[in-house]
């Protein structure tokens, strides 16, 4: 919510081309927080540390890798 407030306030300040960069930067921070805490990507130790930041920076192919359970599912003996 603080991020939303800052985004709106910053939109009224003339920063040239940096306006869009700042708005999307704050959006990415908000999205990363949602992924890490609400979607629990931060709370499972087996999750690869780099995978949680990749999706919100726009690399869709990394999304499955950020799933906290991916390593465990892929190493299940019954699935091999």
């Amino acid at each position, binding site marked *: 919510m603080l991020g*939303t*407030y800052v985004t*709106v306030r910053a939109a009224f300040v*003339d920063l040239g081309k940096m*306006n869009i960069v700042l708005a999307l930067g704050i959006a990415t921070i908000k999205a990363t927080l949602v992924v890490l805490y609400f979607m629990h990507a931060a709370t499972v130790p087996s999750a690869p540390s780099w995978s949680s930041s990749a999706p919100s920076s726009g690399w*869709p192919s990394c999304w499955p890798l950020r799933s906290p359970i991916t390593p465990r599912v892929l190493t299940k003996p019954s699935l091999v």
Partner: protein
Amino acid sequence: MHRTGDLYGHFQTLEQQKETATLGMWIFLVTEVLFFGGLFLAYTINRSAFSTAFGIGSNTLDITLGAGNTVVLIMSSLTMAMAVWSAQVGKKKWVSIFLIATLVLGTVFLGVKAIEYKQKYDHHLIPGSGFDMRYRSAHPTAADDPKEMALEKEEVEKAFEKDPDINAHSQLYFSLYFGMTGLHALHMIIGAGLLVWLIKGSFAGRFTPQYNTPVEVVGLYWHFVDIVWIYLFPLLYLIDRHR
């Protein structure tokens, strides 16, 4: 399909079943990223080509309603996360309460979106033959502030001087606005349907610390829809606000 209690026949344990379902949802979300990614790309290309039209189109949106809806959706993500947590720790009553809170907040979001769409209809800003960027400033209502209207009229006229074909180019902005927010709203409606299904299950006491996969999987979907809006809001509502 063979099923013992909550465990389907092709799984060995509830944990394996849960992890498989969760991974399946993450993979589905990847396809959703690709789906919305195409729209975001179309938006980026057109915004770069017709920046004046996109700026003037964006300034017709109600920033208070957009920001308010962002807060509502983030709150709904919080209540959804709380519902998942309540299911995991066995607080059955709280699962229902948080799921209902999520549904209510989701419904508020959709209600506000409907109000915004109605405003655009009233202001002749629906792409098509009746589209007119000058309509609103030429037909102020009693509720409009005359100073603000005069300023808006001046801004529209300046935009027409800069880009004489602004009516056509603004329609591109509004086509993307309705396309992207409409698809997002469709995802919200589907999510609301899933929440009703979960609420029904929670009233029946179906979700326990051992079995809460549906709550967790729908939760992932709901958070994803929240993330899409987090990007839609600045891209659609906050263009050229400083001018």
